[in-house]
């Protein structure tokens, strides 16, 4: 049976003495989809990605990428043949020219797409003879993306890919991600730009304090999450509205705003039972879902 997940982690843990960076992470990233990996700064996203690529050794648990065990150095080496990774700071060898870096990277991948390379070179207007160290941040990001897209990966892991890009570059990147996914590439990317995520992602994983707070399809989130604004005749107690699925209640006199992750219909019925004079239901943007998931208790 072929594996339907590109990435699977089981109890994956990384701790540094007392500090637990990634805590018993159970993550399943489906193949051929765009999965956004979200979380506040320091949530453990980059540590997780580095563990998956064998740069950091897990202190516990295990994981597979495209069926390869990450803990085996030989398997990890083989999986890197099938995975393209663009790190957060877009690190590139400053002592090479753009041309040298492309030629250097190309030699490691037998199915390098020259046509894709040439197309992106033209679109990004990258200066071939220029030293990488003299490129602007945006140009470095474009070069890093070119190196990732041109190698025909099965899995594309991107850490903050739009950082440093101008709006035109971001638009191009998002289109590229969608087209890559359409060609059967699994895209796994971390981002703080929730509007971009909402546009392209099929699936969202939210990490908080090293733990998985949420892993769901984005269309399911849009269907199940609801914001319900209720106005009562008299000021009710929040406890009276206690229904499973309520994530947060904000009260302001007779007005109450409820964020529900499920059971919206049941919550509305309960509100009407409590003599609600007005009930308004609206969809919840990803930003609110994210903030709710990562909120401090």
């Amino acid at each position: 049976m072929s594996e339907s997940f590109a990435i699977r982690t089981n109890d994956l843990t990384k701790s540094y003495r007392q500090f637990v960076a990634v805590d018993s992470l159970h993550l399943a990233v489906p193949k051929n989809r765009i999965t956004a990996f979200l979380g506040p700064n320091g949530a453990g996203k980059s540590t997780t990605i580095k563990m998956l690529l064998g740069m950091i050794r897990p202190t516990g648990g295990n994981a597979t990428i495209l069926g390869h065990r990450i803990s085996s150095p030989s398997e990890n080496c083989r999986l890197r043949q099938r995975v393209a990774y663009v790190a957060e700071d877009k690190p590139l060898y400053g002592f090479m020219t753009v041309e040298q870096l492309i030629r250097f990277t190309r030699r490691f991948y037998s199915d390098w797409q020259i046509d894709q390379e040439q197309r992106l070179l033209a679109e990004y207007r990258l200066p071939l003879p220029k030293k990488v160290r003299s490129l602007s941040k945006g140009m470095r990001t474009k070069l890093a993306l070119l190196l990732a897209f041109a190698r025909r990966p099965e899995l594309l892991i991107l850490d903050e890919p739009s950082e440093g890009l101008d709006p035109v570059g971001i638009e191009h990147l998002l289109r590229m991600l969608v087209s890559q996914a359409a060609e059967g590439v699994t895209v796994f990317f971390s981002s703080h730009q929730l509007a971009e995520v909402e546009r392209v992602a099929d699936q969202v994983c939210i990490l908080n304090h090293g733990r998985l707070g949420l892993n769901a399809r984005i269309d399911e989130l849009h269907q199940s999450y609801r914001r319900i604004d209720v106005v009562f005749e008299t000021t009710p107690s929040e406890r009276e509205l206690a229904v499973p699925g309520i994530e947060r209640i904000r009260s302001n006199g007779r007005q109450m705003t409820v964020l529900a992750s499920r059971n919206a219909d049941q919550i509305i019925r309960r509100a009407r039972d409590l003599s609600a004079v007005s009930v308004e239901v609206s969809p919840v943007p990803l930003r609110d879902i994210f903030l709710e998931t990562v909120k401090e208790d």
Partner: protein
Amino acid sequence: MLWYKAWLETRGRFLTCLITLTAFCFIFVHHAQEIAFRGDGLSRAGRPADYYRLLFVTQQFLVMMWVVSVVLLGMGGLIRERAFGVSTLTLSLPVSRCRLFGVRVAVGMVEATALVVLPWCAVFLTSFSAGLPIRFSQVSFYIFLILGGGLSYFAMAILVSSVVEGEYTAPAIAFGLVLLTAIAFDAWLRPYSLWRLITGDLSIDRHTYLLSSGFPWSGVAVSLAAAVAMLFLALQRIRKRDF
């Protein structure tokens, strides 16, 4: 292509050291020629010991400059890349850490070899063309001494750069260790001094300034074993480290 990267990374340091060492040897031999054969009526072949003494002095200076050069060439690798933030790019390539390390060491060794062979070739050719008494066996003796005994300095630099982060900290520690070992050997273990071994001080006849005893195989073997041990430790460190 890892060779290509290692070459691009070190070529600036390597070429600077090579030009310096070769130019030094060329100038020194020209100068030595004037000192040893100052128009005193003696034929050029008449006073070879003076010239061999000057070649021995050349070797002393060459060793000093070569050790500085190989320590500089030994700097770099994944730990330095981590400090600059590019280790993630290197480690995302489909190659093992062993191979990354192996290529870096191999390129460094080839460069270290060139830094001995080419300057001594310059000495040989300059002397030969000037009609000065120079033996090929003596030149190869000096070359093998530096390579056989001196590669432990390169290995030490690799080990230090695999343990210590920081662009300036690692070379500072490496040069400190070179000085420390030189002083320690000179003070307490003079007959086993690595410095004296690779300069030829332990094997030279003080009258003729030619190789007096056989090649110091045991000393060279111990030094090479130490180099292998240090490279092994450095590799283990790189394999187990988080980046």
